[in-house]
């Protein structure tokens, strides 16, 4: 089990940031600064949660305004931003590029210019840290849902980002694997931002954002925001 230690916390700043896809506004202009270590994002399907999260590491570019991550502009400093923010996709299978677990974990390190022995060492270390060393030579298509999620997290965290963004990490997982992923997230030293329909996952977080129709409809402590979300969803 991971033991949480305190890592770097980056300021995430949205300045008049808006996103449009063609005629459709996915996110209306938003001014917001996030400085917490654990941030939850909730909302109905299509409310703008994923667009919001993808803005943070530059996967989605703002149509207006800007997003700054630790002072870096996600448009002009894209490469540095990718290095600071790790992203776990809704379907983690989509981000496992290599067929064997340890090869996939090495993929991110190779992209950072690391070579041979250092890659092997860091790959082994992250697998051990997550308690999944036994999966090193497994084929990724043979992993269970929980294992896939852990491997996806390990493959991103091996590059030591300052912030980890997880898009519905417990989606389609059974209760046992949900608990496993939740414990793992809890133990991370990184700043963590989680999009989730699983409200129990974010109820102990420091701050929760609620999105509705592309707008920020709530921002505050989990109890209050989750209650408002339940009202909206009713």
């Amino acid at each position, binding site marked *: 089990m991971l033991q949480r230690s305190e890592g770097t916390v980056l300021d995430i700043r949205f300045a008049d940031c808006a996103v449009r896809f063609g005629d459709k506004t996915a996110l209306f202009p938003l001014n917001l600064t996030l400085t917490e270590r654990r941030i939850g994002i909730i909302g109905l399907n299509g409310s703008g949660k994923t667009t919001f999260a*993808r803005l943070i*590491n530059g*996967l989605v570019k703002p149509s207006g305004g800007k997003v700054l991550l630790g002072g870096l502009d996600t448009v002009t400093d894209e*490469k540095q931003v*990718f*290095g600071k923010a*790790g*992203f776990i*996709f809704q*379907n983690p*299978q*989509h*981000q*496992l*590029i*290599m*067929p*064997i677990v340890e*090869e996939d974990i*090495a*993929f*991110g390190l190779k*992209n*950072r*210019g690391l070579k041979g022995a250092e890659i092997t060492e860091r790959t082994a270390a992250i697998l051990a840290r997550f308690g999944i060393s036994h999966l090193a*030579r497994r*084929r*990724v*298509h043979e992993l269970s849902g929980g294992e896939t999620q852990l491997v996806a997290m390990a*493959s*991103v965290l091996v*590059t030591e980002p300052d912030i980890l963004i997880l898009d519905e990490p417990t989606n389609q997982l059974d209760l046992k694997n949900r608990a496993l992923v939740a414990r793992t997230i809890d133990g991370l030293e990184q700043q963590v931002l989680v999009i989730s329909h699983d409200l129990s996952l974010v109820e102990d977080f420091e701050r929760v954002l609620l999105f509705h129709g592309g707008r920020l409809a709530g921002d505050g402590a989990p109890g209050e925001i989750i209650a408002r979300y339940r009202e909206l969803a009713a």
Partner: protein
Amino acid sequence: MKSLYVEGGTPLHRITVRTKLVMLLAASVVLFFVTSPLVLLPIFLLCAATYFTLGLPLREAFGRVGWVLFAILILALATLYFDGARQAAAMALRIGAVVFLAAAITATTAVSAFMDEITILLQPLERVGLVRAADVGLALALVIRFVPEILERYGHIREAHRARGLPMRPLTLFAPLIILTLKDADTIAMAIDARGFRRQ
């Protein structure tokens, strides 16, 4: 999502990727000039033995090359009809040997090793601005990684047709397959970016 790589410690596993690719290229060229079935037969048997002793279950081993062998058989029958038995035997043994050797190399080489080697081999072309070597290496890796997944998805679409009692029509089978595959391709491209591929 499947890997064609088979764990093992055979001599072929230990040879470098570059040597294996050179071997395959050399074999393909040299065998083209060999016309005697009596010379080709032991070469064919050696290549087949190499492939079948890699540790793959027999059924899977045949499954990987079955369709290619079937195509060779059709070609051999056509050659037999037009050019006689000697030509047909030589053709079948020659192509068969190359197929078994290629399958053996595929089974003993990890995708990442292939990818690294292709990237190195293409560096001269990158220097003159013709290609981006890392992109080609990644593209090859993605083909190996995702073709089996697309086949699996095709199977799911067929099952969905059966479950709903729908007739199997090319349009209703392939349209959803193409749309879903393209949709996933977008996410995969994003994931590659997110994992720093463009930071090289």
